[in-house]
């Protein structure tokens, strides 16, 4: 086995050197964002190790962050102040079958979350949508925030860098001891990855119970186990699927599915956003002098 792989690698590099770019569709170093340099094809571009090459800047084109289920258009908050800015765009849900199998108590909790989604409680930071406070979005919500994320694909580690709240995940393809990562629940969880053919499968555990799925108040507990599947569709799209298993909140596992698209701008990048700065007036304004109202 070793010999053909080495031959392939050297061959790939020779090809790369000859044409002056990274081999087999790795984004060229001159900033050309289109892997392979041509129109979208059907075969996923390859990294040097022969795996699908997921390097790039990605983003969904959907409204799941507002509500992962089917939802109508709605006015935004304070339309008398903000006009048509910030209205809720209508959209198809991303949940398979659209219905979420909540346990009865959890359905009530979800309704309460929705009612209080814009509340800032200075006694209890767990009230309200964590997005408004610029908290890390958790998994899977990080994937379908209306902001880009970048995949930096090494060999043993795949780094997923989200623009929102500058949250990060390291997907460990190598064997790591999960003990320190799972010692306490975390906002972005602990991610272990493997390749299933051309699909990157990521197993996510250790997630804290304080992130939501969307602005509609859909939520989970710290028993949630997420299995994500990233499957290349041609050169510039991925099909994303997440299976949610949370026996404390739901009666059975359920799935969400959506495409993710590659940014093709020549200088596509994610920028540094310190959204804490923008959340502070909302969070601390009533405790300031003079108070913000």
């Amino acid at each position, binding site marked *: 086995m070793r010999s053909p792989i080495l031959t392939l690698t*050297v061959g790939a590099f020779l090809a790369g050197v000859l044409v002056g770019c990274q081999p087999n569709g790795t984004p060229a170093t001159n*900033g050309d964002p289109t892997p392979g340099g041509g129109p979208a094809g059907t075969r996923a571009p390859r990294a040097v190790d022969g795996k699908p090459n997921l390097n790039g800047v990605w983003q969904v084109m959907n409204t799941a962050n507002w509500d992962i289920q089917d939802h109508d258009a709605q006015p935004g908050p304070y339309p008398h102040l903000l006009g048509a800015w910030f209205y809720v765009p209508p959209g198809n849900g991303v949940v398979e079958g659209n219905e979420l199998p909540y346990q009865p108590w959890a359905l009530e909790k979800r309704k309460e979350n929705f009612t209080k989604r814009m509340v800032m409680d*200075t006694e209890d930071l767990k009230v309200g949508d964590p997005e408004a*406070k610029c908290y890390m979005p958790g998994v899977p919500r990080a994937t379908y925030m209306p902001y880009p994320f970048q995949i930096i694909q090494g*060999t043993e*580690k795949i780094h997923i*860098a989200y623009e929102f709240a*500058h949250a990060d995940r390291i997907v460990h393809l190598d064997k790591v001891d999960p003990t320190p990562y799972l010692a306490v629940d975390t906002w972005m969880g602990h991610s272990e990855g493997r390749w299933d053919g051309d699909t990157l499968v990521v197993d996510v555990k250790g997630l804290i119970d304080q992130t939501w799925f969307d602005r509609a108040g859909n939520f989970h507990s710290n028993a949630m186990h997420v299995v994500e599947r990233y499957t290349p569709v041609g050169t510039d799209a991925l099909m994303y699927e997440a299976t949610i298993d949370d026996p404390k909140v739901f009666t059975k596992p359920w799935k969400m599915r959506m495409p993710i698209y590659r940014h093709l701008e020549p200088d596509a990048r994610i920028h540094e956003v310190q959204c804490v700065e923008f*959340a502070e007036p909302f969070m601390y304004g009533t405790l300031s002098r003079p108070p913000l109202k």
Partner: protein
Amino acid sequence: MKARRMAIPVTFGLLAATMVWRLTFLGAQQAEPAGTAAYVQPATTWGEPDLRGVWGGRHQTVTPLERPEKFAGREFLTEEEIAARQKEENELQAKKDALVQRGEGVELGLRGRPAGKTDTIQNFEYNTFWVDTGAPARVFNRTSLIVGPEGRIPYKPEVPARVKFTEAVVSSNPPRDFVNRSWRDRDMGERCITDGTIGMIWAGTGPTEITQGPGYVVIRGEQFRDRRIIPTDGRPHGTIRSILGEAVGRWEGTTLVVETKNFSDRTQHWPLDRFAQEYRTPTASMHLIERFTRTAADAIDYTITITDPSKFTKDFTISFPFLKSPTEQVLLEYACHEANYGMLHLLSQARNLERRTGARRKIAG
């Protein structure tokens, strides 16, 4: 140390780097500590120099930022001084380990560390309770992290007074007439945003992780989840400003050179929201050049040169070797803002104080 290092010449190119990769990777596994043998920089599978891994930061050593007066005019410690200080650190760690094993607080173990402002970076001794290195701090041969004959921050004359005021405000004994009006009266660290780019690698409490993909190096500090995504594909700087600045990298041989500019000016509204430690506060006129050279499997030579004519009379350079930590192999999630009850309490306490005593802050009132 540099003379003994054997670097892969850049002209080797991708092909050579790939062909020797397996060999050099093996070599890296067996490499000796920094400076003890010729070292061949390993390459990634896609042919770029490999800096990946979890690296220790400033917390691994006790070298002060500025040169203490007792070392004036002297850039390096003698072998005897290094040995004596290392012995002290080893004993301190042993004492700490013993206390921890008995179930007593880690901070108790730090009693006895030599204190004194001239011997440390500001507040570092106090803040050692944040830092559990799990191993004795390393004593390097420099008398200060700042290189050169002076070893001091070349502040313009008007700056030190502002620094002093800043220190007083963020200390545990702020001026009696100081009342926090809003979150903007606290520094960006207390707001869980960042302590800034300059100190990210050498001043933080946690380790640093470097990840790489083709054409990118990403540096992440555990503290504040500071993250810098650095393209090395030849793209130029843009015009968009941000708090950590825009970093653009290039490879010079096996050295990663990172140039950072386009810093935001949002923290500069003196004095009302200018409470970060002065030398760690980015400004719009700031410009940084950093160099990362891997010198062993477990060591990177790091230098950062700081230019900011608004605060400093000239450029100055900080140099620090960072090591692959033997005890900290992972970065844990730094969810600071996500539970910043400290800010809520601090502000509600200020409002209560005003209600009870009618206190009003006199400074810039």
